[in-house]
């Protein structure tokens, strides 16, 4: 993917009294009837930072983004974007922000090129400028050949890329992304992650929600875990990973596993924790080094055919499970299920 510039020529400048804080939310709350979608949410995002909001489906991530971007009014709390008070005037910072929603909500009847030109016009860009910027982004996203095709006929990956391009058409200082890579193939997701890394290097403040923990680990400087509308932890990725640094995880792959294996393993190795929920995989967790020799011998004597045993680096997924008690895999499957409309 070609690099995308975020030039300063037409970028909307921060207000002169802008502090180092790009986004500040304090005590945010939002209720839908009796249901508290978001409760007492407080965090701040520094200028130029990539901040991730992670949580399961229905945790309140989209509601939080909607409040920050002016699409929803908080019931309580304050919001400041680039130093501007957006609590009473939710649309005060619209000229400074770009938003990539979780839906690809461009206009199906318009071509890719016309969609980008139209989005540029919404930010008051002049004709020559918006045409140049639209062409630049179509090139950067590898969509130049599809520029004349209608958006409604694009593949899901192409739609997602064009939606992202529309979000940055006006070179915003602060970019909000709601699940930017959900439902994309590996190559497209990688392209988008590369683009976000480029924007980060160019100084754009990025606020993203995702349920892909490895994506958040790779992209974010800081992360907040949101569960049932409340933030349960906010920290840098490095500090979060420290929580699981003292843990040892080994994954054993087997082509055949005998019944009641978990009970037998627990009885034989009482200091280890075993997870045999996935067929063919045994996850072993311990607070000290795991010697795989005795473990493999035990498994083979029990009738398992061991293919490999590897030590896994502790990941953000482990941190997430430890802090929230929610299995990341279950969260991912639930999200995919919701998106596919099952």
């Amino acid at each position, binding site marked *: 993917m070609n690099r995308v510039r975020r030039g300063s020529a037409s970028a909307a400048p921060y207000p002169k009294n802008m502090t180092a804080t790009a986004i500040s939310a304090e005590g945010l709350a939002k209720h839908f009837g009796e249901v508290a979608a978001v409760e007492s949410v407080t965090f701040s995002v520094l200028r130029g930072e990539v901040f991730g909001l992670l949580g399961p489906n229905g945790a309140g991530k989209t509601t939080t983004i909607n409040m920050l*971007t002016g699409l929803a009014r908080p019931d309580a709390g304050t919001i400041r974007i680039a130093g501007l008070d957006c609590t009473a005037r*939710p649309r005060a910072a619209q000229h400074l922000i770009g938003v990539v929603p979780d839906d690809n909500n461009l206009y199906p009847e318009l071509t890719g090129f016309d969609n980008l030109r139209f989005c540029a016009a919404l930010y008051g860009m002049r004709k020559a400028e918006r045409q140049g910027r639209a062409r630049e982004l179509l090139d950067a996203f590898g969509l130049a050949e599809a520029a004349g095709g209608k958006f409604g006929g694009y593949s899901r990956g192409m739609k997602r890329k064009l939606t992202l391009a529309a979000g940055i058409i006006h070179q915003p200082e602060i970019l909000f992304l709601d699940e930017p890579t959900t439902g994309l193939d590996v190559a497209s997701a990688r392209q988008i992650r590369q683009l976000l890394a480029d924007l980060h290097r160019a100084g754009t403040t990025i606020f993203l929600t995702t349920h892909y923990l490895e994506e958040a680990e790779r992209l974010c400087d800081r992360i907040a875990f949101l569960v049932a509308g409340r933030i349960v932890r906010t920290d840098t990725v490095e500090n979060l990973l420290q929580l699981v640094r003292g843990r040892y995880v080994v994954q054993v792959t087997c082509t055949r596993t005998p019944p009641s294996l978990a009970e037998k393993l627990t009885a034989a190795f009482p200091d280890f924790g075993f997870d045999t929920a996935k067929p063919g995989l045994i996850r072993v967790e311990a607070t000290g080094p795991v010697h795989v020799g005795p473990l493999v011998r035990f498994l083979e004597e029990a009738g398992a055919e061991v293919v490999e045993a590897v030590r896994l680096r502790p990941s953000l997924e482990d941190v997430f499970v430890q802090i929230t008690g929610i299995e990341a895999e279950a969260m991912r499957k639930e999200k995919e299920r919701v998106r596919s409309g099952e």
Partner: protein
Amino acid sequence: MKRWIAFWNILVKDMRTYYLKPPNISWGLIFPLAWTGMFFVKSGAGPESLLALLPGVVALSVLFGTTSLLAVTVTFEKRNRSFERLLLAPLSLELLLLAKTGGAIIFGVANAFVPVIMAACLADLSHIAWSTFVPAVLLIAVASTFLGLVIAVAVSEVFEAQTFSNFFRFPMVFLCGLFFPVESLPLFLRPLSYVLPLTYGADLLHGAVDSTNALPPVLDVSALALFCLGLFVASLGNVKRKWIL
């Protein structure tokens, strides 16, 4: 200047994208013409009677054209969430709604002149007071568009918008003096006529075409202006309340 670039592009995009959508052709053009044809055939009169029908069919074309277009431009975009793009743009809600309704107002005015052009081929239109007729068409288009906006904002599906519109549109055909005077209605129905904006628009058109208006033009214009303002404020409040949750 930047806001006007956005305003103009929203308006042009709607005109380019939605004018030729089937609901607009069927409800905005075919239906009013078919309705007029029915009245014309039923009356059994010659082409000279067209002038008496012209205010009704013009008002009908504007009403159905504008309300049908709003159902598409607003409700459809709300449903597929592309309207959020507009809400996220650095544009006041007032200007945004004016841009969204601008295309419908122009469509309504253009629709009005389809039967006028057809009538010009069959009858002498030289006696029409165009200085009253054209502003009357514009005012009806604005009032109908804002009525369509109230409806479009209140529902979530395009078909709901069309159906809900008919609750207002069809009674207006009979109650607003389009094809027969309000005075010929049963007494208990007349108050209802005067709370509908099209009554004042149709009266203005009757005055311009054959001087058969029942109310002073100043009253018609004032009433229409009040309806426009009230309906726009109601739509604005609805968008703020229902769409910015």
